[in-house]
């Protein structure tokens, strides 16, 4: 600590490594060493990371069990797609669309959160699950109100405006924002709500406020992820926002370790590539086994490492200076 030469702090080191890694990936992609298929997979991994960071904020840090994350993801996707389709495709409408996705998802989360966040653990899970199913039904019937949304046939005609670079920048931004949030006084308040609501209330923390805050912000993350997804895939189907999708995100968060940003990032990338990797690695005749293997991985993982990959710890560079010194 008191060396004569000032060493580079881990935060800066991480930033440099990130930039270099991004440059390397981008070079490989533009020279087609990584083909468009894997570029898309990389994009999906980034989107999963953003969405999962949001759920980690909701569940991992604030302790509010949500099984309806995909609904907010869908709200963000449809809202942004409506914006870019009605205003014409350009970078500016895309940015506006992403903002709209985040704001509308956040607004819905706020409105639905105010009443249902009074519920605890499993009851909250069931209420959010119900909300997710209701949203799926609404997406399915959306064409009755807004024909552009396409209902159960899916929404088409969305411009392919995002690519790996966009997703990467947003994933990086999401990570930095979340990291700065959870190590702030607000973050400590959120964690105190998770640890013991009554005790938190007793020391003067407005639990309703922080629960709503964590839930709304986390769902805004889902909205951003959905907006990115809509413009990466250029096609939206209500099927992609159903209950199983919420489970997917929850899985990533739990496998990575609740309350760990590092874990979520690693798990999001690993999970997306594992699913796609099995698609390539397995011969065509046993392709169907892919869907059998992955739940098995899940169960075995949970039995042998129930705390997830990182069990609440972080990479050094994600920790604030004070926490780093202690360890």
């Amino acid at each position, binding site marked *: 600590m008191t060396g004569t030469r000032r060493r580079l702090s881990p935060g800066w080191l991480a930033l440099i490594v990130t930039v270099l890694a991004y440059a390397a990936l981008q070079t490989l992609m533009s020279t087609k060493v990584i083909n468009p298929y894997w570029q898309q997979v990389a994009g999906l991994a980034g989107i999963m990371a953003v969405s999962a960071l949001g759920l980690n904020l909701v569940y991992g840090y604030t302790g509010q069990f949500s099984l309806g994350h995909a609904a907010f993801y869908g709200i963000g996707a449809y809202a942004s797609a409506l914006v870019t389709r009605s205003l014409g495709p350009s970078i500016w409408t895309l940015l506006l669309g992403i903002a709209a996705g985040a704001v509308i998802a956040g607004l819905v989360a706020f409105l639905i959160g105010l009443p*249902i966040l009074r519920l605890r653990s499993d009851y909250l899970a*069931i209420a959010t699950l119900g909300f997710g199913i209701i949203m799926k039904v609404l997406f399915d019937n959306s064409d009755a109100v807004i024909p552009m949304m396409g209902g159960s046939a899916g929404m088409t005609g969305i411009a392919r405006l995002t690519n790996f670079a966009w997703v990467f920048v947003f994933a990086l931004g999401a990570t930095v924002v979340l990291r700065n949030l959870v190590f702030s006084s607000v973050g400590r308040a959120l964690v105190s709500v998770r640890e013991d609501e009554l005790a938190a209330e007793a020391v003067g923390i407005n639990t309703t406020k922080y629960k709503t805050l964590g839930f709304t912000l986390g769902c805004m993350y889902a909205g951003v992820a959905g907006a990115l997804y809509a413009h990466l895939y250029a096609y939206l189907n209500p099927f992609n926002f159903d209950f199983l999708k919420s489970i997917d995100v929850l*899985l990533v968060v739990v496998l990575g370790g609740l309350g760990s940003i590092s874990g979520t990032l690693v798990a999001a990338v690993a999970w997306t590539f594992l699913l796609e990797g099995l698609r390539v690695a397995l011969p065509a005749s046993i392709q*169907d086994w892919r*869907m059998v293997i992955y*739940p098995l991985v*899940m*169960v075995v993982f*949970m039995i042998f490492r129930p705390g997830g990959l990182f069990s609440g710890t972080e990479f050094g560079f994600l920790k604030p200076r004070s926490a780093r010194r202690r360890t």
Partner: protein
Amino acid sequence: MSYFLQQLINGLQLGFVYALIALGYTMVYGIVKLINFAHGDVFMVGAYLGFFAMANWALPFPVAILVAMVGCAVLGMVIERLAYKPLRNAPRISALITAMGVSLFIENFTNLNFVFGPAPRAFPRPFAVRTFNLGGVSITNITVIVFGVSILLMVALTWFVNSTKTGRAMRAVSMDKDTSRLMGIDVDRIITITFGIGSALAGAGGVLFGFAYPQIQPLMGIMPGLKAFVAAVLGGIGIIPGAMLGAVIMGVVETFTSAYVSSTLRDAVAFGVLIIVLLVRPTGILGRPGREKV
């Protein structure tokens, strides 16, 4: 009016099938506080066992129900031993994720071609459908059988839980696991038995479901499973009569929405009712309002 009564009968029929599934959810939740997501898939396996028993082995209907019940009971107990028992002392979320994993595993495994295969199958009807006309309301013999079998099973379960030694042990474990263990109850055995009984009921429910709505496929358990769980929460989770009541409400609400509003909205309405009930009475209709303890 007769249309209303007709829809009520249809709703009750669906509700009774949900009730058979919901009982397993509620009993398991009452004892180990786990949302057993795989329960809906056990129900699906029950439907298939009933199908094989009747279509391939040419067994009579009552025997087919027994085959499905026994098969599902074994399946439920195996799942409990292999997947949930190692996690008894782990964080609850791990057990929940495991339950989802087991559920996805059963769905995708049975979806493989050499198991059940993804194609829907027509459930056989062992006898011709007869319709009785009662004052403008037509009741089929299928409805009568669904009503009869489910009521019989529910009465049997109520008797078992209230009047046998094992049933008493089950109630004790659901109240306080540690104290029950001190009183000499083999808690692990009781948990396994609970899974067995719950799964057997779901198996019977599966056969009745296939019988009443004659098409089965490997993913058929997801929605009825979720709705049955919702029904259990609606009635007050962990409470056996609550599960029956909640399931009947769920079935009737769903049928009425299809009949009077729109069939595409029935899931939304069913879950909307759930959210409202949870907000007004979070512990369910028959649940006792609990107080938070420090």
